[in-house]
């Protein structure tokens, strides 16, 4: 098995899905000749031509809007929004149309499209290039919201998203693009959407994370084991919406304690929904309130202060210790 970083793994998924289905198109700014600013669509235009890998004019609303039209016609466009911070210029197309066309047309049409966006901090970037906005999409009925945490699951989830008959927002953590290599099998691989994975098992506490925060949670679990002798479960959500509540609830029923970690601001974020789900399903098992380790509820802080804002291992460990001591 070749070892690939996340960029190469995503590129492999796109290549294989385009080879297997002539209806799959790639559309976005600089995705063709340039291969995307992060090179995720590298070489696709050379292989599939400029009609299938489209260097669009610079306009997010029309990228998504025209892709909706293509999808209504039966194609399966995969759009790239260059940075998630720019997606507010197409948010109306996503919320008003992508998410609703199946319902509006009562099943006569559906919108089988994927919107890929790099998100999150950790790359010393300017404003609009380092925020985390998954909560907006997770809140919209009709959409699915997926965030992989490494090369192998990124490849398998992107393939699943492309094959999904409903619109999928696919966030890619910029911090993970080149972070690590993983063995990724040559043959096509699919991970079902809507399922979380338990990536580490322990009886004392459940850490819940996704995207770039999964490795932070895993490192925190190592520290807790080494310094406190505490065994921690770590859950990688993979799909934010629809949320895999069963996996969360059954874990917290065993551990009685949960800490949620995300890069998005705290209030009304995914952590709130996760905490409410745990309350709904595992209230009688809780030994402590569900804690959230998140960015603070402030606008963009600049990368000189980013470390203080985005959750890191020490903040997660501290929250875990508080929870264990409650």
């Amino acid at each position, binding site marked *: 098995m070749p070892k690939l970083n996340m960029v190469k793994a995503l590129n492999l998924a796109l290549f294989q899905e385009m080879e297997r289905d002539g209806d799959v*198109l790639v559309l976005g700014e600089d995705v063709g000749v340039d291969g995307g600013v992060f090179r995720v669509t590298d070489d696709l235009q050379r292989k599939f031509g400029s*009609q299938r890998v489209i260097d*669009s*004019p610079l*306009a997010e*609303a*029309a990228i*998504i*809007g*025209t*892709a*909706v*039209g*293509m*999808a*209504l*016609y*039966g*194609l399966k*466009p995969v759009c790239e929004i260059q940075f998630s911070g720019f997606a507010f210029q197409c948010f*109306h*197309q996503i919320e*008003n*149309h992508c998410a609703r066309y*199946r*319902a*509006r*047309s*009562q*099943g*006569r*049409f*559906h919108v089988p499209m994927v919107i890929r966006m790099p998100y999150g901090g950790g790359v010393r970037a300017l404003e609009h290039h380092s925020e985390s906005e998954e909560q907006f999409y997770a809140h919209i*009925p*009709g959409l*699915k919201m997926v965030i992989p945490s490494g090369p192998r699951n990124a490849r398998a989830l992107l393939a699943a998203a492309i094959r*999904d*008959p*409903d619109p999928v927002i696919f966030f890619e953590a910029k911090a993970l693009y080149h972070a690590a290599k993983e063995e990724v099998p040559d043959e096509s691989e699919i991970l079902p959407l*809507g399922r979380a994975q338990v990536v580490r098992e322990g009886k004392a506490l459940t850490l819940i994370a996704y995207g770039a925060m999964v490795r932070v949670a895993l490192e925190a679990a190592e520290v807790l084991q080494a310094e406190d002798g505490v065994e921690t479960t770590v859950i990688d959500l993979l799909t934010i919406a*629809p*949320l895999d*509540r*069963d996996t969360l609830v059954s874990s917290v029923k065993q551990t*009685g304690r949960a800490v949620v970690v995300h890069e998005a601001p705290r209030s009304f974020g995914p952590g709130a929904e996760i905490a409410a789900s745990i309350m709904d399903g595992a*209230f*009688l*098992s*809780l*030994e*402590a309130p569900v804690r959230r380790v998140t960015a603070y509820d402030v606008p963009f802080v600049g990368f000189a202060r980013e470390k203080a804002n985005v959750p890191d291992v020490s903040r997660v460990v501290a929250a875990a210790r508080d929870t264990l001591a409650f």
Partner: protein
Amino acid sequence: MPRIALEPRFQVEHLSVLDSEGNLDTALEPKLSADELKSLYRAMVLGRRLDERMVRLQRQGRIGTFAPIKGQEASQMGTAFTLRRADWMVPSFREIAAMIWRGWPIEKLLLFYAGHVEGGRPADDQHDLPITIPVSTQLPHAVGLAYAAQYRGDDVVVMAYFGDGATSEGDFHEAMNFAGVWHVPVVFVCQNNQWAISVPLKKQTHSRTIAQKALAYGLPGVQVDGNDVLAVYAAAREAVDRARAGDGPTLIESVTYRLGFHTTADDPSKYRSEEEVTMWEKKDPLTRFRAYLEQRNLLESDIESRVDEEIAAAVQRFEATPPADPLTMFDHAYAELPPDLEAQRAEMAEREAAGPPRVGEPTPLPPRATPMRGQRLTRR
């Protein structure tokens, strides 16, 4: 360096065939058969009579708010009449006459305006998008449909409708730009009815015409007398033929007037004068076309009563629709219902089965809760 004049290469035409005085430009008169002329007029009359009926239905509370088309029948029908069944129509929310021509049953539209989402479902073989309400956001969809048709090699033209207000929105400009760059078979039909709710055209744009906006995107733009169905048809015919021949998109500005209100929730007397309305009433597209048909001996005397019968029958079918089953609201959220939504659906099913809650009776106390693990009140 010299200044080089580029501008004379471009021009914006205004097209008129039959004016409100009955003068006819026979050189531009489209070649339509007697049957085509009759069915064109019939569709316009149907649009007008249904519009008037719908206003009454709305006033009686039998349907909700809708956007009347009165005055815009020529603008809609002259364009939609040029489409084949396999072509696509992308409406905004003020195209009832064109939508019915395209095959939407009247009772389905009534159902839609009575708040039933079922009314928004086009038939399986119908190449029409449902009504789009956020202004201009349907235009990129039209461009995407046209791109997809071209990609598949299908012989398809897409026609998209919008109003003068929509030309201030970003999606209009983005759609025009993409259509130009991609050179796709799409026809943009702007029904310039002079008013975007209370804002007149002169406050909407500083351009002399809307048609000229096409030039900036490298497309032909034409302005047409939108109350002259023959001129609208001629302009649309040209644009649709151009698109079908692979020669790219066109913007048609159809200059017309909204004789009624923006929607049934609006009072136009607040922002426009009666004189203005009277002036436009003299240019009524139906009166003009009717005179033309009379002259050619093509007017069917009982057309109004036959159309009214068709509407009455449709209203009856609409009113016989059984009440909506609330549980079906979950049917088209996703291809497959996620577990969350399964649970929410079950929650609603249980409530529906239990019937309405009783009012005025004390709610019995729930049984004492069992002590719980993690219950700290006694310890702290």
